[in-house]
């Protein structure tokens, strides 16, 4: 065990240029049935994600932003295999997410900021032990990883406490650990700093930056906090009404104004960013 956390840059790509996330024309259309009379039903369609193209290279840390209802969560759910795309091509870590969902699950880690995957009534530690079994993490690797996260996220003081007694910040650190114990190559974080105080936010950001640099894990970060983006992401993908509104370096996005103004304009539809560049 010279290196407890494996690096993914080398491990997951045969050719360096191969993207770890590849979406081409990715589309998701929901069909809703509305009652229009006693027996008659009206069909209405809603396209949540509309022909999105996305290429993410291994080791990238991408901020995935957009207003509420823009299609961020729907995209993430297709990338994890939770939802079946209506059309388009999609590959993540060499798998077709929906078809190879169970095998892909071992290669990805997901953090839903608004939901916990931890066992509410049991000590935090027990959730980790269960994940070791479910993901078949080799014992030595599990021990090394757990030691690392206890140290990096300062879990020690509340490891034996039931999750229901943890503060939001402590719970989030627990959730992040739970999503990473199996060394995922791709990590999706859906609003990981939501509701956290300034200190906890800072700790989570520092940790994520370090994770990305140390393990080479590819990170896709969904957030409404422009500070998260400024401090973490070198690349930003913004979507609106299910379409890509901007995809490029962070520096270009905030070249002449502050990020918050740019994002606000992006969200209110007065996009002034040159998307061709």
């Amino acid at each position, binding site marked *: 065990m010279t290196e407890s956390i494996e690096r993914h840059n080398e491990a997951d790509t045969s050719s360096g240029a191969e993207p770890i996330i590849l979406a081409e024309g990715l589309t998701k259309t929901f069909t809703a049935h509305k009652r229009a009379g006693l027996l008659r039903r009206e069909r209405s369609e809603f396209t949540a994600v509309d022909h999105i193209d996305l290429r993410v290279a291994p080791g990238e840390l991408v901020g995935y932003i957009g207003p509420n209802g823009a299609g961020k969560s729907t995209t993430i759910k297709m990338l994890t295999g939770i939802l079946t795309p209506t059309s388009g091509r999609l590959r993540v870590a060499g798998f077709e997410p929906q078809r190879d969902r169970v095998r892909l699950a071992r290669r990805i880690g997901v953090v839903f900021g608004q939901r916990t995957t931890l066992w509410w009534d049991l000590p935090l530690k027990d959730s980790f032990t269960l994940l070791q079994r479910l*993901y078949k993490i080799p014992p030595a690797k599990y021990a090394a990883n757990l030691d690392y996260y206890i140290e990096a996220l300062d879990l020690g003081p509340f490891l034996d406490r039931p999750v229901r007694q943890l503060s939001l910040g402590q719970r989030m650190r627990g959730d992040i650990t739970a999503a990473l114990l199996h060394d995922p190559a791709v990590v999706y974080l859906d609003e990981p700093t939501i509701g956290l105080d300034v200190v906890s936010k800072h700790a989570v950001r520092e940790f994520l930056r370090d994770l990305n640099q140390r393990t080479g894990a590819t990170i896709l970060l969904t957030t409404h906090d422009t500070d998260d983006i400024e401090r973490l992401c070198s690349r930003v993908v913004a979507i609106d009404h299910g379409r890509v509104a901007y995809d490029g370096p962070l520096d270009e996005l905030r070249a002449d104004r502050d990020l918050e103004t740019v994002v606000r304009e992006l969200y209110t539809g007065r996009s002034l960013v040159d998307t061709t560049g």
Partner: protein
Amino acid sequence: MVDERPLFGPRAYLLLVRMWSRSASQYRVSLAFTGFAQMLVASFDLISIAVIYTHVQTLAGFTFAETLYLYGTTRLAFAASDLVASGIESVADSIRLGTFDLVLIRPVSTLAQVLADQFTPKRFGKLIPAVVTLVWALTELPLHWTPAKVAVAVVTVLTGFVLYCSLWVLSGCISFIAVDAREVANTFTYGSEYATEYPLTIFGRPLGLALTFVLPVAFVTWQPSLYVLGHADPFGLPGFLRFASPVIAALLAGLAALAWRGSVRRYRSTGS
């Protein structure tokens, strides 16, 4: 090399059941009370059967001991399926709240996860009256037990268990089509249990036949028990049906597995 195969479904199920049991054990007093309540409620039906037989000698041609046998085998098979599979009832809530997403990001069988969901040891409470009833019936029945009858009696409980488990899974599938259809789903599970507690003849011929060929719960205990108790079929159905239960159970289990796969595929998730 790292083992890439997902964890074996039944093992995942047992791991999750242990976690849920430990969660439930955090509230010991509540667990003890609800377990006792479940046992009590399960015993009430038995009292009503006993009361009926204080007024009549036979019910639809069946003696008290025979009805006890039907009731005992049904209850035992159902209580066992309730213990193992009724966790799937909460799938409707998890679809509505979107927490079913979390089931789909785990590298283990979705069915193992939903069956184990919210497992609580209080369900053992229902097993006790079922076992007591069956033992009572066996001591009361004036039967000559041949090896064939013993085998059919054992298989009755086993196939009944499989049939009910399949119905639990099918009722879970209904939640994917209509999230608020819990009552409809309950008709399949609790309703079919209720329908097989008594001699099927009390429902009359049309309903009796429907419960044989449409929703095949007559095969849970009724048909094999006619053989064990040495009764002719009051509906006059052919004799080979007495031994058809394992086939029906296998068919329904297969159907349930297919329906579950289809349901997970059409899962739509919720807002965010």
